[in-house]
């Protein structure tokens, strides 16, 4: 479960003064649901998700993630969250297995549990062939799998994806989409951000349109279409943002 409550992120800029990257955003996402944050570049998607993952602290407001308050128990939140973005790279000089082991240990898994989890994940994602290969020698698709394994090693109940398909080719992007759906089917709470309309259409149960740090519209795809009287999602987005 994720519940964002009036999240605000303010940055101090020398020239512009106080800048609001996120300005009073509230939404919620239940287990077994995918919530998609749709917005242009610089709309505040990444900042919102970083606050949910406790990489950034909110200036105001808070969020309850997997039962923990992001401002009070950030470490417990991180223990329950799997965070994946194109910015979360791999340690090139570690092997695929070492990479996943490292994060498993940081999540406090004991060695037998860690072994079991890694065997399970590596088999499920068909990663056993390149287990011992260094991450910087892997193909993009293999790297994606290692990143997925890294987010899954501690079996989190909440998954956060920040533009996970950005810059990926069709095949790699499909792997990620499939993985996101699988997370939902396993009853996880999933939030993801994108600026690709088709992804939202295919994956999301709920959509939030974000612009200039504000959540302008929210609902299921049919609800939004009915509310704005537009069928095409791209037209809908332009209408919401332009209004």
């Amino acid at each position, binding site marked *: 479960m994720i519940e964002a409550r009036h999240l605000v992120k303010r940055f101090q800029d020398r020239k512009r003064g106080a800048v609001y990257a996120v300005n009073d955003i509230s939404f919620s996402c239940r287990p077994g649901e995918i919530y998609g944050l749709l917005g242009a570049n610089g709309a505040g998607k990444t900042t919102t998700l970083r606050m949910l993952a406790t990489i950034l602290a909110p200036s105001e407001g808070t969020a309850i993630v997997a039962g923990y308050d992001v401002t009070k128990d950030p470490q417990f939140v991180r223990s329950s969250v799997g965070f994946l973005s194109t910015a979360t790279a791999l*340690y090139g*000089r570690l092997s695929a297995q070492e990479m996943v082991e490292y994060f498993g240990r940081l999540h406090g898994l004991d060695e037998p549990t860690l072994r079991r989890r890694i065997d399970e994940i590596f088999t499920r994602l068909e990663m056993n062939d390149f287990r011992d290969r260094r991450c910087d020698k892997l193909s993009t698709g293999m790297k994606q799998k290692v990143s997925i394994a890294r987010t899954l090693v501690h079996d989190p109940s909440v998954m956060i994806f920040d533009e996970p398909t950005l810059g990926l080719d069709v095949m790699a992007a499909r792997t990620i989409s499939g993985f996101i759906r699988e997370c939902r089917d396993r009853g996880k709470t999933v939030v993801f951000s994108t600026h690709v309309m088709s992804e939202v259409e295919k994956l999301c149960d709920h959509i939030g349109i974000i612009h200039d740090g504000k959540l302008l519209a929210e609902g299921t795809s049919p609800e939004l279409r009915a509310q704005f009287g537009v069928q095409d999602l791209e037209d809908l987005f332009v209408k919401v943002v332009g209004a």
Partner: protein
Amino acid sequence: MSVRNIGIVYRKELIDSLRDRRTVISMTVVPLLLMPLLAIGLGLFLLQVGHAMNEIPQIMILGGEDSPHVREELQKLKDVRVIPAKPDYAEEISNKEIRAAVEIPEGFEAKLASGESSTVKIYMYEGELKSSFGADRLQRFFRELRDRAVRERLEARQLPDSLVRPFDIVQKNVAPPEKVGGAILGGMVPYLVILLCLTGAMYPAMDLTAGEKERGTMETILCSPVSRTHLVLGKFLMVLTAAVATAILAIVSMAVSFGLGKKLLLGITHGAADAALQITITGKAMVSIFLVVLPLAVFFSAALLALALFAKSFKEAQSYISPLMIVVVLPAVASLLPGMELNFALALVPVVNTSLVSKEIITGTYHWNLIAVIFLSSSAYAAAALAIAVKLFQREDVLFRT
């Protein structure tokens, strides 16, 4: 404080760094190569001095045709070779074709016999080692000649020697040989150890902070449950390991290089270059230097980590850290300056204190009270730098600088 988490981060950073060729090179190859090279360089220099001392200098005698005895005695000297005089003697000295020339004034022997004063001139190349050896030999010859003349005159008047020599002056060295050698060489050693300690820490400090930002792994690690304090402490321990490993390698490599070099050189020069080579780095000195350098290594590691964390990329980190080299090198050079002596005030100045006390340790002097002051003050600076590094790691504007 979770020691387990710090340990996990440290172990990972250690594996990661040891697989990085650049870190390994800066940590091991530089100290292992530099010290033997330095020993070889010094050895070659001493060999040159030895050769210069063994060379029989060529000299010219100008004038003195009316003083055949003096000329003959000079010709007979075994440790100079007299060659025929030429008018361009000055040029030949400058071109190092001859080492020195002596001008005997007209009627020198006659004046000597009659008790009239005259001046013998020796021409040489000031500051040129071989020329000064030639000139010294000529000086000695004429000094002995003068002494002999004085003695003869005193004898003729039946006066005692002590009339012109009321007392003798003897200068004696009481410092043990290792201190004499240490004073010559001792300054170099701490300078190099401190410098290598810094360069050893430099690369991993940049790689573990700015490097992580650049490669995009900073965000990955920040979304793990490890606290930022544990993360920075694990990273700090890795940088410290690199600094200490480099320092230990440098100290050991130095002791071995100088130990071997000394034996070889003494063999070649037959003990000619003895005084300057009397530097023995004892086990006690190695351990003591290590102990005073340790808090400095902590200070360097934490300071470099904090500084490099500010940078967005490896290149930016380099541009911050390169000037730091000069900031460290200048005080480290203090130990090379003659006459710089350790006192209480200097014991509080970072880098300078370690540099000076290491020099003293090498020459066998142990001022334990000052060593304690230095250890404590360096530890205080180190703690402050580490606290700053930990603080900076909590700041979003530093971690996510755009």
